């Protein structure tokens, strides 16, 4: 069924050119801005040091982890019906993490220094040290697993061990990423021992949104172009899981909002009342970006329709991007120990350079995705699954 992959044809080349142009344009713009103005081209400040580039990195890193966790369904836990998307999940996890890392690199003050200063100084007390270790290993194991799949080695002992190691690394990397925020008791909006669980859940949800969108994109948004096992998955277990994941995400946001609104601590409650719920964009991301797709995926008459699935994935894509943004900024809007120099909540709107970095990340993900679809067979499955499907089709006809 690989010949039906439109990314291998002219459509793919077109998307490749467009994403390549957007990537280069945004990268060049960002580099010109950064080399001429430095980080003064960002709208961050010493009072609100982490802005949209950090939120973008967080989004990409967690979407990658989410895809890694989805891949583990067939590769580690034996949910065979997910085999048709396993290889694409691993590939997307790899390229989305690369995109996120590039955004983070351009956010740092001294990126090249990071390459020696983090490993050589071995500051094990810092969650950010572990972030470097875990995500670097995560990247390595994703690549290793992908190479195993590429060589058709799905079920060998090594392949399984690499898959399990990759799964554990994904858990460590994204859980630790949560702790970068969750361990900060001086930032009560973030301080939460269960934040890793929230991150796991939302990570898989954003990974699922990416998977649904990119899987359909490969086949020109035509389900009949997909292999039978993949069609079965897209009309069976996957949309139900998608619904459950969005529902879980909403539940997490609800409990965070309820505890946040209930508490007397103004450093938490004010973030909810005066920042998040005071922002029309936050409402939009919550109701249209998450609740609407949840309702769509909940209704059995809608959830199997291709256009509804694509709509839900795009909405969740955008909704969770906003969620990450508001999470990162929300932890910083209450000024820390500034007195009446900063009498109100801090305000922040991303600058053109910060938007350029986000757009660069997105376009790089698209660029690498098309290259992946062109040069690899991302829909590959173990022979056993393909043969079973072939036999079923033969029997049906």
């Amino acid at each position, binding site marked *: 069924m690989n010949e039906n992959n439109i990314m291998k044809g002219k459509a793919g080349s077109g998307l490749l050119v467009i994403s390549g142009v957007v990537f280069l344009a945004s990268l060049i713009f960002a580099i010109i801005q950064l080399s001429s103005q430095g980080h003064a081209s960002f709208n961050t400040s*010493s009072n609100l040091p982490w802005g949209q580039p950090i939120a973008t990195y967080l989004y990409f890193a967690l979407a990658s982890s989410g895809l890694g966790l989805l891949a583990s369904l067939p590769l580690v836990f034996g949910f065979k019906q997910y085999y048709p998307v396993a290889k694409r999940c691993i590939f997307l996890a790899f390229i989305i993490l690369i995109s996120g890392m590039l955004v983070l690199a351009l956010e*740092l*003050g001294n990126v090249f220094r990071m390459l020696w200063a983090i490993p050589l100084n071995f500051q094990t007390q810092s969650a950010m*040290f572990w*972030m*470097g270790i875990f995500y670097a290993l995560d990247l390595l194991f994703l690549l290793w697993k992908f190479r195993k799949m590429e060589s058709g080695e799905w079920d060998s002992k090594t392949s399984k061990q690499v898959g399990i190691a990759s799964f554990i690394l994904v858990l460590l990397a994204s859980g630790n990423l949560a702790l970068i925020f969750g361990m900060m008791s*001086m930032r009560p909006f973030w301080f939460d021992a269960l934040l890793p669980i929230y991150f796991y859940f939302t990570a898989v949800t954003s990974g699922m949104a990416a998977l649904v969108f990119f899987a359909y994109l490969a086949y020109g948004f035509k389900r009949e172009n997909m292999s039978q096992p993949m069609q079965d998955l897209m009309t069976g277990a996957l949309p139900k899981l998608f619904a459950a994941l969005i529902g879980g995400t909403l539940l997490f946001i609800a409990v965070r909002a309820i505890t946040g609104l209930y508490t007397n601590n103004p450093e938490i409650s004010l973030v909810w009342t005066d920042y998040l719920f005071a922002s029309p964009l936050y409402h939009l991301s919550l109701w249209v970006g998450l609740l609407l797709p949840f309702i769509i995926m909940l209704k059995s008459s809608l959830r199997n329709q291709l256009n509804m699935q694509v709509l839900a994935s795009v909405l969740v894509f955008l909704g969770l991007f906003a969620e990450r943004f508001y999470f990162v900024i929300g*932890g910083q809007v209450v000024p820390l*120990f500034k007195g009446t120099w900063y009498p109100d909540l801090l305000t922040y709107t991303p600058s053109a350079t910060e938007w350029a970095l986000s757009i660069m990340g997105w376009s790089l993900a698209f660029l690498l995705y098309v290259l992946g679809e062109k040069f690899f067979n991302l829909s590959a499955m173990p022979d056993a699954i393909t043969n079973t499907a072939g036999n079923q089709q033969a029997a049906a006809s």
Partner: protein
Amino acid sequence: MAKWGMVIDLDKCTGCQACTTACAMENSTLPGETWQDVLFYHEGEYPNAQMKWLPRPCMQCESPSCVHVCPTRATYKDEEAGGIVFVDWNKCIGCKYCMIACPYGVRFYVDEKPLLEPDLREIFPGENQQLWSPPYQGPDEDWSKGIGVQPPGVVSKCTFCHHKVSKAPEGTVDLDEDNPAVKEYVPACVRTCAPKARYFGDLDEPTSQVNQLIGDKHGVRLKDHTGNKPQVYYLGAGAGVPAFQPSDKGDKS
């Protein structure tokens, strides 16, 4: 080795900001890069409205959360230097995690939009890898301790004027600006304080003036619930931080 500590008597402080100015002059900091600042807080409403002010250097915490989070050990607590928390500008990658983790908001990343126009960085462009090169600079520069004018892309902070304090004769207990023998080694903010609201000395020495003041006058540490254990103590009424309240949300009861 001494454990340097500062005591600030709020009953004496007039909020004049001379300390802030002296610090900026001594350390060639940019507008907004206020290693030392006097914060103003208002609390309550008529008829019991209060205004309070808190001079705020880096607290040089005993258990500094900024040090724990730094992925490269660029920020570190130097027990040999009296427990001062430094930033090694040769190691800082500019991730700004320490700024997130500092409960006292005393860290600065000046590679940002200028607080004031004209931008001093454009008037005095950086030379020799400095972010900016003001015409007057102190003679002391040590990037491994974050002393001098920083390069771009790193975090800066108060050093308790280590370049002065470290030159005090061995065994000095009180760095008192009234003592001619040691006045050159007193941190700039302490030396310039007209009402003599600041004291500087060795917290490890039981007889030091700072220890006497903390004991006798009920010295407190700000935001003590964070567990960071500052080496800066406050005396007098008003040594506390009111909860954050946006300016338009006063107590209307």
